[in-house]
């Protein structure tokens, strides 16, 4: 036991003295959260917009006020004509425009039907779609409020027919994905590199010749990284909650328990990689590239798995991160308990055990 503690202490020395390890361990999650939370978000905030109002009545004024109040748009100014608007588009000053035809309010009140045109800069299709969806939602909301006390509903027709939930927070779906990604990269890479480093430096031989049992070598490697990974997990959660307003609706204990299994499976993966590689660079490459791509592709947090061809869907099932991501989403964002995720949990635990067994076995074979 004392030998074990001596070893664990040594591992911590290694971690805290190696800038590269520290960077992967703590820089990576922070960078990822910020990147995915802010840079890669599909939300658009403060998009420049203009309004061309040929009607200038109560209804258009109210809609304009609502647009101006929305955090997604920054209402530049009201332009007087279509030509002004076109000029603004050409200069790239605005992302979209709203055009109210003459007699908007009249049409609405008497004909119970009015039209509004939304024009978006289509050079960036994704932005365009998102913005028009936002506008559509704002107008729809206005219409809804208007209709609250009136028997025959008023109808405002926009060109966009898809509905968007303006409440939707883009970072929410990313956080569980980022957690899976960061844990996968950090645990796998660091474990494999730290073991391979000992091989490369020749210290592994000395350890194997010592009375220290090989199993303990692995365990004492795993313990510090397990602890650090849990810390990592906590950091990402905190960043998500306080920086990106991601709610944690589910049970924290369950979240940690599921993460523990996922971390274990990552650690065993790292161990497995270290059994088959002999240089730190190779180990790093394999664990970074080999882990990152499947995790990004097959967890479903960037690309929906349902849309993939079936062979890829089948492959996605062997990626532990996929199951972990699904569990995290359900527990964290939907707030459901173990009854909702027991199947996924079972798969995750099974995979963890299998990986652990395979990696331990391959480590022993290498010693013989």
């Amino acid at each position, binding site marked *: 036991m*004392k*030998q074990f*503690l*001596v*070893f664990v*202490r*040594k591992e911590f*020395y*290694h971690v805290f*003295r*190696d800038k590269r390890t520290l960077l992967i361990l703590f820089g990576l999650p922070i960078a990822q959260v910020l990147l995915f939370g802010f840079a890669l978000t599909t939300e658009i905030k403060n998009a420049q917009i203009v309004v061309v109002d040929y009607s200038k009545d109560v209804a258009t004024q109210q809609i304009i006020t609502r647009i101006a109040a929305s955090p997604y748009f920054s209402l530049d100014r009201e332009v007087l004509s279509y030509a002004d608007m076109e000029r603004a588009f050409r200069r790239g000053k605005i992302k979209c425009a709203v055009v109210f035809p003459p007699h908007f309010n009249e049409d609405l009140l008497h004909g119970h039907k009015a039209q509004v045109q939304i024009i978006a800069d289509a050079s960036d299709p994704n932005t365009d779609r998102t913005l028009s969806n936002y506008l559509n939602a704002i107008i729809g909301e206005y219409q809804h409020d208007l209709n609250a006390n009136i028997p025959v509903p008023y109808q405002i027709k926009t060109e966009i027919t898809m509905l968007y939930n303006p409440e939707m927070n883009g970072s929410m779906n990313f956080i569980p994905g980022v957690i899976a990604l960061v844990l996968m990269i950090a645990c796998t890479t660091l474990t494999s590199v730290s073991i391979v480093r000992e091989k490369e*430096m*020749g*210290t592994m*031989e*000395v*350890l*194997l*010749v*010592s*009375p*220290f049992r090989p199993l303990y070598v692995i365990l004492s490697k795993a313990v510090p990284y397990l602890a650090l990974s849990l810390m990592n997990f906590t950091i990402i959660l905190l960043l998500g909650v306080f920086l990106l307003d991601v709610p944690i609706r589910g049970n924290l204990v369950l979240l940690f328990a599921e993460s523990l299994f996922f971390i274990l499976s990552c650690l065993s993966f790292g161990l497995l990689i270290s059994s088959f590689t002999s240089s730190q660079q190779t180990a790093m490459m394999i664990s970074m590239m080999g882990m990152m791509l499947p995790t990004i592709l097959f967890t479903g947090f960037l690309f929906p798995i349902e849309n993939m061809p079936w062979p890829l869907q089948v492959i996605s099932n062997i990626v532990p991160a996929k199951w972990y991501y699904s569990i995290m989403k359900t527990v964290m964002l939907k707030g459901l308990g173990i009854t909702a995720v027991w199947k996924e949990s079972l798969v995750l635990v099974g995979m963890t055990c299998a990986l652990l067994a395979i990696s331990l076995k391959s480590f022993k074979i290498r*010693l*013989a």
Partner: protein
Amino acid sequence: MTDKAIVCKDLCKQFGDFTAVNRISFDVNKGEIYGFLGANGAGKTTAMRMLCGLSYPTSGEATVAGYNVYRQQEAIKRNIGYMSQKFSLYENLTVRENIRFYGGVYGLSDSQLKEKGVELIERLGLGKEMNKLVGELPLGWKQKLAFSVAIIHQPTIVFLDEPTGGVDPVTRRQFWDLIYHAADQGITIFVTTHYMDEAEYCHRLSIMVDGRIDALDTPAELKRKYSARTMDEVFYALARGAKRSAD
């Protein structure tokens, strides 16, 4: 207990149909400095790994420190020290931390560690460097430190695998002073080397060619037998007949 540190009889190791070590037999006396020579690929490392309890022999018998290499690997590991050609201390740990780590791995108590540590530091004159990272020390000192750490638990035998690779002649000489000192304390030294001047320092040595031990004697006797002036000539006379190419 016998007065033999290592007894080796017809030891074989086969990888597929390749015989890495071919029926080698030799004894090493207690307190002896035994040189284990051979060209690259002659099978030295494989033989040494079997004696250290890192791999099982295919056939043959061997005991190390009185323990059987098939059944008592754990006991062997407790009674040997090991230093490899690769530098075997942790570069980003300080001198003190390295000593405490390896001492701890061999199960030394805190008081033993303290006593041994102080003794070791004094002998090497490393007092001022105690809290320096090992990576910052010059290679010669690292090597000496690695050797001292390898025998910190007073093993019966210490295995040195090309311990002086890349070290200048003066430091090598100093290194051998440490080896003699350890041998005086009764520690058996089992050393492989490519330096023939170092071979002369050994009490007895064997030369491996193609997995066999082709010669085993004192340096003086070997030179006489092969009517050579230096160990170099003896080595070449034997190694020239090798069929395996060096790896």
